[in-house]
């Protein structure tokens, strides 16, 4: 089967791989909405959605757990969004109104191409990242495409042709532009450090993880969250703002803007916005994990190759070095970290109240931006003396 796959034209291979990733992200993004409801319920000490179950499954043992986790509720909600009437208000600009949710989806799923999500060891024992396209522009592509996501919000707000969506769209554009700056500046030290003088320069995310999995105790495999805590903090805060999560969910703040940019949306188009938001969260958390949390390396200072080698020595089984086992294990570790980051998103949502709009602007321009510039300068000087 593997030989059949690799015999296919490169284009078809790419499409198949891309579809596989989208087929993973789409349900996970949808499941995140259920996770959100469950996490908020547990934080508020209630059970959350736990009653829906198809009657024919009611007798099967084990289905009760899925019922209590709300998975059938998720399926029912999804089915509802597919089949309910698509409201299209009379006063909207119809073409752009319909276009906006699709534009929201495109950057959310495009950024995945340059995000590595696992690795395996080849015959020579070298770590090969699993990703759709290992291109050198890496993080640049993520930022470039992810920032297009704001156009969907602006378009939705404008095309809705009513005041609250419009305000939401305006807020979205101002907020995303403000935080993009500090976000980009906060990751620059990472790439300054990774691209040692003399080596071929690369902005690839796989390269960053590779750097964090150098063997060696002290400096080698140190995750960047330990060496650059400020960068990590700024990046995380900016990520909250970029993905419109509480406490930065200005574009849709229910309290003052009804539903913000998606006030006029309903049914499937609304759920597309929702899925796109969660897909953005997943990709954002993935990038955070890759940059600062060591990607698919299990524990700080113990890279994947060392773990696999250790398991190989311990059990004496060659199975651990098989690419498939290593790949699945690394993907599992990576996805686990991403889920932890997403849990952090939901956790913060129920802890920190929404900022006022002027506070959002103040934090963005007067706090995070100078801080990230100072951070960049400090690390530039530091890295110069360390590596120069």
């Amino acid at each position: 089967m593997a030989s059949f796959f690799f015999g296919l034209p490169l284009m078809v291979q790419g499409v198949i791989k891309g579809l596989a990733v989208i087929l993973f992200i789409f349900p996970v993004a949808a499941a995140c909405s259920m996770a959100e409801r469950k996490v908020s319920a547990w934080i508020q000490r209630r059970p959350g959605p736990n009653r829906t179950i198809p009657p024919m499954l009611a007798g099967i043992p084990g289905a009760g757990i899925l019922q209590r986790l709300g998975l059938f509720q998720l399926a029912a909600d999804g089915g509802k969004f597919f089949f309910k009437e698509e409201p299209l208000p009379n006063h909207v600009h119809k073409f752009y109104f319909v276009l906006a949710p699709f534009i929201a989806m495109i950057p959310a799923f495009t950024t995945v191409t340059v995000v590595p999500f696992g690795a395996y060891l080849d015959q020579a024992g070298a770590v090969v990242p699993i990703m759709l396209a290992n291109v050198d522009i890496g993080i640049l592509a993520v930022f470039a495409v992810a920032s297009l996501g704001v156009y969907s919000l602006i378009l939705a707000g404008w095309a809705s042709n009513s005041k609250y969506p419009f305000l939401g769209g305006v807020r979205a554009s101002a907020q995303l532009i403000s935080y993009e700056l500090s976000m980009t500046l906060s990751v620059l030290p990472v790439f300054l450090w990774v691209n040692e003088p003399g080596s071929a320069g690369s902005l690839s995310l796989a390269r960053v993880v590779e750097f964090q999995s150098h063997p060696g105790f002290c400096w080698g495999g140190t995750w960047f969250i330990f060496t650059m805590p400020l960068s990590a903090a700024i990046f995380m805060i900016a990520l909250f703002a970029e993905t419109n999560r509480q406490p930065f969910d200005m574009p849709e703040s229910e309290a003052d803007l009804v539903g913000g940019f998606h006030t006029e949306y309903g049914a499937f188009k609304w759920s597309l916005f929702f899925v796109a938001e969660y897909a953005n969260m997943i990709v954002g958390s993935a990038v955070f994990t890759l940059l600062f949390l060591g990607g698919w390396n299990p524990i700080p200072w113990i890279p994947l190759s060392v773990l696999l080698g250790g398991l190989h020595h311990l059990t004496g089984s060659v199975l651990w070095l098989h690419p498939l086992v290593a790949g699945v294990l690394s993907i599992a570790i990576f996805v686990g970290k991403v889920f932890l980051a997403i849990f952090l998103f939901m956790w913060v949502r129920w802890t920190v109240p929404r900022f006022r709009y002027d506070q959002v602007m103040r934090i963005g321009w007067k706090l995070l931006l100078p801080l990230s510039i100072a951070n960049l300068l400090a690390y530039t000087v530091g890295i110069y003396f360390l590596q120069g």
Partner: protein
Amino acid sequence: MAVIQVKRKALTLAERTYLPQIVGGLMTTLKYFFKPNETLQYPEERPAIPPGYRGVPTLVMDPHGREKCVSCQLCEFVCPPKAIRITPGSVAEGKGIDHVEKAPQAFDIDMLRCIYCGLCEEVCPEEAIFLQKQYSMSGYSRSEMVNHKDRLYELGGTLPDKHFKWDKKKAAEDGSGAHP
């Protein structure tokens, strides 16, 4: 009145950066995350009703299964939203309660009007009407929401009663001085 000047403490650096405060808040929410649920799965689990709860008003019988209400209509008159409507009637012969003059022929409580104030229970000289533990009333029509006499007795049942007021009265009338 002396004016006390309260010194406003300047925020420390840690407080101004706001992040340690957020971490503290996260710890609080995490604590609640692992606590058991506060809620009940309602139709299956029912809350424990404390004594003295003012639920749906009901009519009760005495431990001998005799009607206590003498249709004095005090509850009807005291009822603030005028939810109670009593039609007094004479007592049927040979039921063992002929020393009472009246019994209600009809006793209707309109639960769409009732405000659960408990004044009827408080005013009743015969301790015949009680607000008991039923808290959920529903029906498909307005007429279904009116509790008639038989329904009121069905809801009320018999309450333990130490007074045996009628037996006392009867014994006083007879001069026998005996009552159970």
